[in-house]
């Protein structure tokens, strides 16, 4: 018998053909040993319970979850990680190499976090089963979760590799995937530094309670514990979270907790077990207070007050036409209540990272879509200068809006700052589900007035959205709701209102299609109900009312901007074709949905994209920007565009340039000098003034009567617009590359449309600069020269005058230029109506599906699925298809699977085993995607944003098909099988159809 009774034990393994040895804790999993002790970073961690498959390796030739095995159990075993697949005996190694090529060619992954595990299972499947059915392959991959892709391109790539097809010569459109499919890629939660301290958080025990006492004395005595921190240890201001609209969230609770998401204390210890033990020994004495977790109760006068100024924290209205008169004269009025629930973003990478000190600079590898706000938040909390904090995350394992605001950087920052040692703080999946941000739930009452022929005449929408205990970005989410109230339809008389409400629920962060998702579900549901109640075909009713041209904030059409909503629906209709033959005993249904959802919402802010294109003295090109990679392909697309425009054979290197983030003036970024404190301070001051004014206005108007509010915004619209424009102009002039600091620097649907323009602006300037430099050097006029892919040629004899390398040498070693693109500076209000000006452009898409429902069990099978998106221009059709299928997968999850069990402000799901992110087996066999290229977008060749739209439209198409199948409308997502059975019974009893 082998016995280990120490804190540390030796384990011997063979990994990728090499004998290795590691000292591990007996409680350490094989995944943790491989990743953290042995440095096989490709063995990733996503759930710790064998559901997500990110940690999959071959153990004695079989794909196994290395998180389900202790390192000591693996003693003597032969382990192959994804990076070692090609080292195996041929021919399996050749197949694995081919598979990798196909994954790149088919752009099978996006954020790439799940890719290394999937590689192992897919390679094993091909090697053991050879060419198999798609179903067989989906089963083989069903022990993996991918949040980005919807699996389809993964399955297609694997099939292609299994068949031994030839990899297309045009591959390489996602070269970033090569790195993501290996241990080379560093994600925030990966091993960054050897043997960091382990951080842990003690969370609130109540949704609302007064804290009487916090006793950490016992916890401090646990051997191995280095620090136990409470609010008393915060050196600066005890604040965290999204501080754009209100500074209301303490980093660590002082005398009160308002949500289960409140952190009370932090621990750093030498190992996991001591950290656990210390958390367990902190004694917090609570006095529970009454809590409110229902939005309708929260807006009641007698409700317990959660914030400092009442529970309604934002109110937005959209009004045009004469709504009351229109309803009076309408032939039909349809009413309904529709609610969207909270979802977890369920990024495959867990939330967290590692922090350490480099000199006096605090380095943090944490996911954050707006690193500027994150850095400044940490600096304020620590009472240090913002340039002493750096958030480094060139790529992350998924975000979907979650990290538009976060608090993890504050917890980690404080632990590092106090211990002066490297700390790793990564939340568990249960903590992420029970304690971290969720999508904003909403509840709305909708009234739609129409004429007998189906023409819509009036809409009233009254929506509440739940912020949770702190304001965060809720005003931005609430603002979208009335602005998009009419959805894809032309409705002349509208009164829509959305209010953001504080409750003692969890905190909320934007999630894919924030605001749009909530309101689209409402408007599409009331339209669907109207179709059912009037007997008009739902597709026809939509066609009759579609917006034909874009409208501005007054409901006035903008000339030369036609919309193609009708075509997207037509194409989906055609693709679905004849209805499928009904299967015995199953109920069949078909449903459609169309959305017209924002991308790029300036809210009066400066949203600028700056890109630097440079050539070094060896003639190597680089594209630099502050845009990081959450999987959306934006950085790679920038390099592709630059290569295309300059005619380069090889893609330039992409550099995630921190200077652009650290220095908002962009001076360092553009010329190597840092902005003076005064200039940087002035920039911040103006920004502060603007956001402060916004938050004052939000507070002031939150509880106003609707008409009074509209009057006010109309009256102040001109001065507000004037001052906003003036301030933005001033900022633009003074700080040549600035942008407002809470503008997301990861993805977001607008990113590519803007980045594409910035890159082309840069390449244009580069060509001009090359000509000027060459002309000066050669003493000729620039007119006599031409820029070609190798450098500059003399036009008359076509001889190469100067190569790029020479041009760079002549420019002092590097030839670099800046390119930029602006989102149109938003003017906030329309002077005629007081309504918001709204987004700069919209994503237009229709989805449709045929599904079958088993009336006895409530099981739903999606039989056929089609999507058509107006993408403007398809710069990378494969990537677009991947985004659309991935969004559809998320939509399937929202519609049918992803239920959070929430009661009295507490969430009871504990992992990915009971929060049901769709697996490959949940997906329809083929999501047919059609791209419509209208050229009407804001980007290069009229390309449009796309990323969020599929996730907004897909769940609605599915529930509309359910409505068609069972005759009862789903009013709250998700529709779980037992609820579907109940709804069918309900139809039986009241005869509704």
């Amino acid at each position, binding site marked *: 018998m082998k016995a280990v009774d120490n804190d540390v034990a030796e384990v011997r393994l063979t990994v990728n053909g090499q004998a290795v040895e590691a000292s591990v804790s007996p409680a350490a999993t094989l995944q943790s040993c491989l990743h953290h002790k042995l440095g096989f970073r490709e063995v990733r961690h996503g759930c710790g319970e064998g559901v997500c498959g990110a940690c999959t390796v071959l153990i004695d030739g079989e794909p196994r979850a290395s998180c389900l095995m202790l390192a000591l159990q693996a003693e003597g075993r032969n382990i192959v990680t994804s990076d070692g697949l090609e080292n195996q005996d041929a021919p399996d190694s050749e197949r694995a190499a081919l598979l990798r090529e196909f994954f790149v060619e088919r752009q099978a992954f996006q954020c790439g976090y799940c890719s290394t595990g999937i590689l192992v*299972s897919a390679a094993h499947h091909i090697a053991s089963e050879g060419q198999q059915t798609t179903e067989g392959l989906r089963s083989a991959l069903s022990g993996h979760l991918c949040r980005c892709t919807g699996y389809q391109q993964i399955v297609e790539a694997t099939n292609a590799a299994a068949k031994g097809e030839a990899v297309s010569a045009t591959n390489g459109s996602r070269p970033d995937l090569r790195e993501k499919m290996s241990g080379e890629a560093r994600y925030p939660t990966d091993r960054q530094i050897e043997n960091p301290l382990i951080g842990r958080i003690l969370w609130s025990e109540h949704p609302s309670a007064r804290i009487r006492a916090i006793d950490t004395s016992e916890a401090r005595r646990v051997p191995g514990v280095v620090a136990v921190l409470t609010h008393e240890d915060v050196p600066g201001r005890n604040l965290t979270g999204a501080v754009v609209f209100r500074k209301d969230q303490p980093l660590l609770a002082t005398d009160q907790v308002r949500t289960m998401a409140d952190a009370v204390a932090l621990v750093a210890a030498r190992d996991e077990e001591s950290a656990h033990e210390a958390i367990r020994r902190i004694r917090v004495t609570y006095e529970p207070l009454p809590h409110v977790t229902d939005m309708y109760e929260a807006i009641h006068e007698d409700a317990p007050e959660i914030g400092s100024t009442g529970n309604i924290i934002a109110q937005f209205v959209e009004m045009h036409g004469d709504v009351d008169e229109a309803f009076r004269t309408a032939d039909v009025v349809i009413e309904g209540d529709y609610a969207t629930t909270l979802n977890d973003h369920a990024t495959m990478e867990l939330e967290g990272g590692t922090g350490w000190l480099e000199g006096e600079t605090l380095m943090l590898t944490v996911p954050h879509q707006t690193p500027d706000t994150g850095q400044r938040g940490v600096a304020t909390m620590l009472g240090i200068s913002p340039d002493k904090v750096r958030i480094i995350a060139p790529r992350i394992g998924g975000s979907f809006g979650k990290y538009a605001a976060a608090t993890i950087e504050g917890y980690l920052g404080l632990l590092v700052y106090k211990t002066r040692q490297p700390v790793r703080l990564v939340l568990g999946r249960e903590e992420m589900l029970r304690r971290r941000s969720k999508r904003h739930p909403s509840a709305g009452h909708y009234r739609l007035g129409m004429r007998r022929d189906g023409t819509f005449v009036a809409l009233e929408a009254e929506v509440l959205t739940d912020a949770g205990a702190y304001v965060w970005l809720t005003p931005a989410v609430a603002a979208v709701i009335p602005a998009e109230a009419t959805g894809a339809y032309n409705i002349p008389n509208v009164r829509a209102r959305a209010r953001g409400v504080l409750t003692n629920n969890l905190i909320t962060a934007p999630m894919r299609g924030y605001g749009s998702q909530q309101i689209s579900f409402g408007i599409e549901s009331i339209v669907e109900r109207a179709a059912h109640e009037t007997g008009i075909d739902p597709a026809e009713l939509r066609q009759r009312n579609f917006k034909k041209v874009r409208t501005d904030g007054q409901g006035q059409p903008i000339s030369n901007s036609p919309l193609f909503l009708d075509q997207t629906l037509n194409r989906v209709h055609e693709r679905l074709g004849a209805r499928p033959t009904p299967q015995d005993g199953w109920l069949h249904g078909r449903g459609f949905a169309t959305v017209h959802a924002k991308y790029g919402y300036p809210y009066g802010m400066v949203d600028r994209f700056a890109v630097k294109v440079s050539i070094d003295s060896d003639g190597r090109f680089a594209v630099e920007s502050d845009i990081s990679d959450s999987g959306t392909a934006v950085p790679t697309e920038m390099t592709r565009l630059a290569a295309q425009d300059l005619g380069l054979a090889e893609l330039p290197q992409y550099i995630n340039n921190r200077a652009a983030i650290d220095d908002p003036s962009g001076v360092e970024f553009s010329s190597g000098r840092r902005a003076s404190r005064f200039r940087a301070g002035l920039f911040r001051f103006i920004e502060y003034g603007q956001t402060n004014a916004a938050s004052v206005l939000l507070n002031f108007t939150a509880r106003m009567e609707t008409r009074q509010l509209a009057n006010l915004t109309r009256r102040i619209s001109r001065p507000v617009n004037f001052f906003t424009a003036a301030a933005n102009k001033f900022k633009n002039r003074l700080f040549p590359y600035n942008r407002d600091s809470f503008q997301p620097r990861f993805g977001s649907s607008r990113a590519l449309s803007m980045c594409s323009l910035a890159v082309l602006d840069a390449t244009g300037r580069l060509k001009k600069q090359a000509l000027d430099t060459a002309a000066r050097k050669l003493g000729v006029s620039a007119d006599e020269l031409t820029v070609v892919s190798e450098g500059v040629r003399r036009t008359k004899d076509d001889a190469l005058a100067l190569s790029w390398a020479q041009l760079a040498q002549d420019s002092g070693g590097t030839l670099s230029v800046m390119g930029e693109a602006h989102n149109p500076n938003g003017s906030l209000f329309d002077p005629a109506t007081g309504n918001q000006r709204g987004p700069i452009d919209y994503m237009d898409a229709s989805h449709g599906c045929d599904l079958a429902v088993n009336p006895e069990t409530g099981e739903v099978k999606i039989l056929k699925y089609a999507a058509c998106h107006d993408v403007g221009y398809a710069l990378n059709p494969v990537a677009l298809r991947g985004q659309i299928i991935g969004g559809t997968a998320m939509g399937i999850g929202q519609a049918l699977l992803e239920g959070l069990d929430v009661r009295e402000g507490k969430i009871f799901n504990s992992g990915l085993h009971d929060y*049901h992110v769709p697996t490959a087996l949940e997906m329809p066999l083929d999501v047919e995607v059609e791209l419509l290229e209208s050229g009407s977008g804001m980007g290069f060749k009229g390309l449009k944003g796309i990323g969020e739209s599929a996730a907004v439209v897909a769940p609605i198409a599915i529930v509309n098909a359910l409505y068609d199948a069972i005759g009862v409308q789903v009013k709250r997502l998700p529709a779980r099988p*037992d609820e579907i059975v109940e709804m069918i019974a309900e139809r039986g009893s009241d005869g509704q159809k």
Partner: protein
Amino acid sequence: MKYLRASTIEEAQSVIKDGGVVLAGGTVLVPKIAHEGAFGKTIVDIGRIPDLTEVLTTASHLRIGAMVTLAHIAADVAIQRDYGALAQAASAIGNPQVRRAATLGGNVALGTHTSDTMPALLALDAEVEYFGSAGMQTRPIADFVAAGNLITAIRVPRDGDVRSGFRKFAWRRASGISVVSVAVALRIKDGLISSSRLTVNGLSKHVVRLQKAESLLAGKAWTEKLADDAANAAAVEAVSDIEHSASEHYRRRLLKFGVRETLKEVMRA
């Protein structure tokens, strides 16, 4: 925490009787250790004990070693043919990676209503062979208590006349936790159902037999109507005493549907 790797059954049992925790496939225990810590417990790894991984066919039984994986059982052609319920139950658990780690012994030791092999094994009238304080013993699966004992094998009676099947309902097709699962085993002699065992999991704390429904089938010739009658009887007789996010009414529906459809499938095969 203390980690022991046992090389014999006796070694393992000597640790277990003093409160040691058995580490079999690890799919349940390892996440727990990683998440909560083992806090001073002794973990005894039985993965290297040689005779626990055999599948043997004796004159009277199929004997499956406790450490045989669910993936192995699901893929075993002979088990698929003769013990359909067990093979189907094994293949319905978790996902491919989990099934390659999870063992039959471990799944039985869970003994709770989350074990999906239990209804199949109870329907097949399986026995647990274990090593306890009184040495090697065998007990019917329904009477087995895991505490202090080391499961060495599961023995399923060989009977060429028995046909069996299994069905699981979960919210998700892979990595789904069973809401309700049912198993049926029918002994067909001279065209008549001479005896049957119907089991369900998901309504009460333990896997239970549905004896009223079984008696309805006894001695009858197969008709589809018989399946309906048995399913209806099963849905009525099952005792429900656990809380679940799905209503009792719904779970009874699943039971009814499961019994009916599994009976039909078994008879079609």
